[in-house]
């Protein structure tokens, strides 16, 4: 029993241990150098990532509060890997920051929350995990301590997430009222589809939609992304979104199976809205972080189309896309992060003529953007293709046609940046940036991921084998 406990919760325990180590460092009498702390945490995060590969077996703990299986372990590994990359990328930003241990403690608490959320077998446990993963994020958004925008972002984030949590809780309580249970394994048997249940489900759905910024619940996204430090923005847009998406698919496919028709229709409408509005707003952005915020909204729209396929292709392509999206988005954010930390420039216009001064970073950014746009041979192509193919599986071709044409729009705004980098001239280009080796490693990992995860089909095939059907 005790053994089981340690093996099944290994990833949570490692994160927990890291948080404790940081706490001791903080309260201890010895003064640690920032770089030492960062190196230590990065190594420990690496260990955490590796731990994910060993002994992934199925298990249930605490009366179905905590469930684990190889797929969930894999999903957590994806998230830990992403966290490691973000941590490496924010090296130059954190180096001179006053509160490095706190940064990591908050960051890892949210990661822990996501792990619990992914492993939850009960709506309450899910809610707990979600809150743990959200509230520290608001503090993190405020981590550019001397910038007003940063605290504004934090305020917006905490208010909007509190609001969405409220909606979610209301949904949960209605769900409990109509079925008498909160356990995932019992819910599908008790959901009959009467109107109060559907209402409760819609509230729950809205709670989810808030977290993954589905239109019309997206209004907080752009401001928070723009104001927060780049590291936190990339964490919000990749890790936190990815975690909720993992849960979202499995909850829809497994728990709310009886309401499939309801959520299919909702998904169709919301995905179209999300893609179109995300794209239209992304067209006009000039701040790089805001731009990535809107483009990531559009990406979520594509993910919803993948989910609407209601098949094993759907669930596996969503998980696969989150992985691909992690590499590509972190590649783009990584470059923005490094440039912003060293030069303070965050506008797209600043990137004009970027290729002349920073060819390597330009290529990394370009490849990442191509992957976000879905250009082969990058992984993004495969991700998008499978999402849309999955959506086409439910024979809703008008949806697929609109989505495919929207890919062309998204193409335009990604190419606009490529054009700025390669073709435009600039009187004051961003000067040559010297990238710290930790960030360099992270960027190379992202590019390698973008190039390899697609063409080498093993990754997708094994995700497919792990994932679940409808």
């Amino acid at each position, binding site marked *: 029993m005790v053994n089981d406990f340690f093996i099944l919760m290994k990833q949570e325990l490692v994160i927990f241990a890291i948080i404790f180590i940081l706490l001791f460092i903080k309260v201890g009498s010895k003064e640690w150098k920032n770089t030492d702390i960062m190196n230590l945490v990065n190594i420990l995060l690496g260990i955490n990532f590796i731990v994910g590969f060993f002994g992934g077996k199925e298990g249930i703990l605490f009366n179905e509060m905590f469930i684990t299986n190889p797929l969930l372990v894999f999903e957590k590994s994806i998230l830990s890997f992403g966290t490691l990359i973000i941590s490496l990328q924010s090296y130059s930003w954190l180096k001179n920051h006053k509160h490095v241990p706190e940064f990591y403690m908050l960051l890892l608490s949210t990661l822990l929350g996501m792990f619990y959320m992914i492993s939850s077998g009960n709506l309450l446990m899910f809610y707990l995990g979600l809150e743990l993963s959200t509230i520290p994020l608001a503090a993190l958004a405020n981590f550019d301590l001397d910038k007003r925008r940063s605290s504004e972002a934090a305020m917006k984030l905490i208010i909007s997430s509190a609001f969405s949590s409220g909606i979610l809780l209301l949904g949960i309580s209605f769900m409990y009222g109509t079925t008498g249970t909160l356990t995932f394994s019992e819910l599908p048997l008790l959901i009959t589809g009467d109107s109060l249940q559907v209402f409760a489900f819609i509230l729950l759905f809205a709670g989810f939609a808030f977290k993954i910024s589905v239109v019309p619940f997206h209004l907080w996204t752009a401001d928070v992304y723009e104001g927060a430090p780049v590291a936190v923005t990339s964490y919000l847009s990749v890790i936190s979104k990815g975690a909720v998406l993992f849960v979202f698919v499995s909850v829809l496919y497994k728990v709310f199976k009886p309401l499939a028709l309801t959520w299919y229709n909702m998904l169709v409408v919301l995905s179209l809205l999300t893609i179109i509005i995300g794209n239209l707003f992304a067209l006009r952005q000039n701040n790089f972080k805001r731009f990535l915020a809107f483009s990531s909204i559009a990406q979520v729209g594509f993910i919803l189309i993948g989910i609407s396929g209601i098949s094993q292709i759907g669930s596996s392509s969503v998980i696969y896309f989150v992985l691909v999206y992690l590499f590509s988005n972190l590649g783009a954010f990584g470059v923005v992060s490094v440039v912003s930390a060293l030069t303070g420039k965050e506008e797209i216009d600043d990137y004009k003529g970027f290729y002349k001064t920073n060819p390597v970073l330009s290529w990394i950014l370009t490849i990442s953007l191509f992957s976000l746009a879905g*250009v082969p041979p990058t992984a993004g*192509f495969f991700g998008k293709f499978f999402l*849309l193919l999955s959506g086409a599986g439910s024979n809703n071709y008008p949806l697929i046609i609109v989505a495919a044409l929207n890919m*062309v729009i998204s193409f335009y705004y990604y*190419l606009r940046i490529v054009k700025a980098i*390669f073709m435009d001239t600039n009187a004051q280009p961003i000067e040559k940036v010297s990238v710290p080796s930790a960030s360099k490693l992270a960027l190379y990992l992202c590019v390698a991921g973008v190039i390899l995860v697609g063409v080498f*089909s093993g990754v997708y095939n094994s995700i497919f084998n792990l994932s679940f059907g409808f």
Partner: protein
Amino acid sequence: MNLSLLIILPFVTALAVLFASGLKQVRTISLVGSVAQLGLSFVLLSQYLQQRLVDKTSRMLFETDMGWFQRMNIHYHIGVDGISIAMILLTAFVVVAGVLVSWTTETLSKEFFFLLIFLSAGAYGFFISLDIFTMFFFLEVAVIPKFLLIGIWGSGKKEYSAMKLALMLMGGSALIFVGLAGIYFNTSYNGLHTFDLLQISQSHIPLEVQMFFFPFAFIGFGIFTALFPFHTWVPDGHSSAPTAASMFLAGISMKLGGYGCLRVATYLMPEAAHAYQWVIVVLATIAIIYGAFATMMQKDLKYINAYSSISHCGFVLLGIGMLTRTSIAGAVMQMVSHGLMTALFFAAIGMVYSRTHTRMVDKLGGLLKIIPFISTVFVIAGLCSLGLPGFSGFVAEMTVFMGSWQNPDTLYRVATILACASIVVTAVYILRAVGQTVMGPITDKHYEGLGDAAWNEKLAAGLLLAGIVAIGVAPFWLSDLIGPGVETINKVLTVIK
């Protein structure tokens, strides 16, 4: 022969270019790599012919079939028939010529050659794919390098043109995607949905499905090959692109579309092809005539060639749309012929432009006296373009007309006559452009000191000319080569009839 070499070789070359140091190394590696591609395609040709003599079959040869994304039944399935080999040869010729022509590129030469070679990998991959997912993958691989090539090394309003081209081609890809998804979910081979070209051709797609998805596939590929009214990227794209990219664009890239229209849309959905036949023929005829008349109005040599490409690619679509054995053979021959001819034309224009720094017809004149070699090449390319016997254009267009005439319907007869008549217009604009630039008095005395073609330019022109003449004088080898492949497609089409 292992066909994957055709993808691996350019890929390795491109990587080698990336790691090369110095202009000289970059050039040498690109040239060696592209010549090796040419060698490889000749080896492929000879092996294929031998094999076919032995086997006496028209099926795909040198197949490799590996699972790729097995759970969705997506395979890396490659193989060739005569049509693919003809296209591969065309690609190899144009790539070598393109590398030679851009020999003097000095700004960002490494990136330039990298993209050029990378582009060719996409084209080869497209032509050898037998799985339409793989095909789509390579088709899109070949789009983005064009955007960068035009946007970075182009001239004129290059950014606008690059963006227009990329977006229109991506729009085409989006339509193709819808077509592919429709095909995939409506086929069942051994109980699985499939992307495999050969399996789909054996499993019958229901008529109403074909009717819905054929336009997506055909228009999607059609955009690549300047199907009217989706041709607008052609003039801007071609005229802004650097010489080698123009050659690629007109010589290879537009052929991707024609090949896809034939191999995917028409071959897999023959009933819908018959049903929509009149639309295709009408659009193709419009493209032919509109292209020809639009060319007459142009003053810029590159625009002249770009608009005439719309007209010439109209013949490809006309040949496909007529759906007879001869007309399809003609369409394939026209693809090869136009590829070589237009590449030569663009090469010649590039050579003129790099010397005189203008492409305006009215500013040029008397070039034959100053740069005789380039001028001769220019004249030959023009004559080939207007379909003079002895060059490939005549053979290909003639075959298309013969095939078209076999269609007894009045509409198709009228279309054929109109298409034939367009040749007169072609003659007008070609002779006028060629005459004004090459003959007459020297308009600008700055031109007098210009040097004639360098060795690389001579070699490039010679190579393309050899191909054009080889088809023009002895067309039977090409029609023999593509014959069985065309027959396979024709069989599907006649069964339906």
